[in-house]
């Protein structure tokens, strides 16, 4: 019997492709500019590339949702834009040149087809899951306390976003005691 794949899994897989493309698969290497190697600027650049893609993804999601889901997605997208600004500022402080995002059309080609609110919420959940993981992994790699504090703060926001999009689907906001791995 041929393996089956659920619609949710298909959407998640598309999101994975988006993330890979946004974090180096198709873009120029993250910032380099004048930042010193090992300063953390390159890692921040990868996080920024992901944030740019997520902002574009929420714009796509907003086209197929309404009511409370739309209000929440707009609130999340506003926070993601603030994350973009914070990461850009940090990269500049390190002497780097923050990577710019792609055009809306380029991002749109990498997104799954979103036909109904459930599609948008499943896509958003997958993206938030990946963002939480990316920021928490960055905590291990970033060399400077200030940069780790920023990653932790933004990671907490992404944890709230993940819980919110789960709640909007009628799922328990908290999936388990450890979101990405136990002590």
């Amino acid at each position, binding site marked *: 019997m041929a393996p089956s794949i659920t619609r949710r899994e298909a959407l998640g897989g598309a999101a994975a492709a988006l993330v890979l493309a946004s974090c180096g698969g198709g873009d120029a290497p993250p910032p380099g500019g004048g930042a010193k190697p090992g300063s953390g600027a390159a890692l921040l650049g990868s996080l920024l590339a992901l944030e740019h893609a997520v902002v574009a993804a929420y714009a796509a999601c907003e086209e197929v949702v309404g009511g409370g889901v739309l209000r929440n997605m707009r609130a999340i997208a506003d926070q993601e834009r603030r994350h973009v600004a914070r990461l850009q500022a940090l990269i500049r402080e390190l002497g780097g040149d923050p990577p710019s995002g792609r055009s809306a059309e380029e991002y749109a080609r990498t997104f799954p087809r979103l036909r109904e609110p459930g599609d948008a919420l499943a896509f958003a959940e997958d993206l938030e899951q990946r963002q939480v993981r990316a920021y928490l992994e960055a905590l*291990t790699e970033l060399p400077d306390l200030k940069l*780790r504090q920023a990653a932790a703060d933004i990671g907490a926001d992404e944890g709230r976003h*993940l819980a919110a999009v789960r709640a909007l689907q009628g799922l328990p*906001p908290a999936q388990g005691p450890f979101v990405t791995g136990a*002590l």
Partner: protein
Amino acid sequence: MAARSDVELLEDLLAIEQRLVSAYEGALRREAIDVGLGEMLRDHEREHAGAIERALAGAGQRNPRALVPEAKLTAALRSRTSFARFAVHLEDEAVAAYARTAAEIRNPRLRQPLGSIMACEAAHGVALRNALGEPVLID
């Protein structure tokens, strides 16, 4: 002020977890929270406390005591609404403490798992706000 040791940082987090466990246990006893939600939150906090105790084992662990003033918890237990607001406050404090500690702690292997608990506490805040009928995101 001198930087705090990893053990001190973990002991602070353990005290926070013990405070959360006590709060949810009290709320369940007094029926100040939906049973399903309260049991899930309590069980998560117990898992967090157990994990931190294991991280502390053999590292000069003291025995932190719960920090919550009893009077505040008692007052909060008067209704489900007041308890949910109290618990949102505790969870927000926990998120802030985990964010600080995940950045500050010297052992890099502990940073990501502490962040994982932080994300769970953030989700608890959303669950409690959802139970209150408030917007799930506070901006």
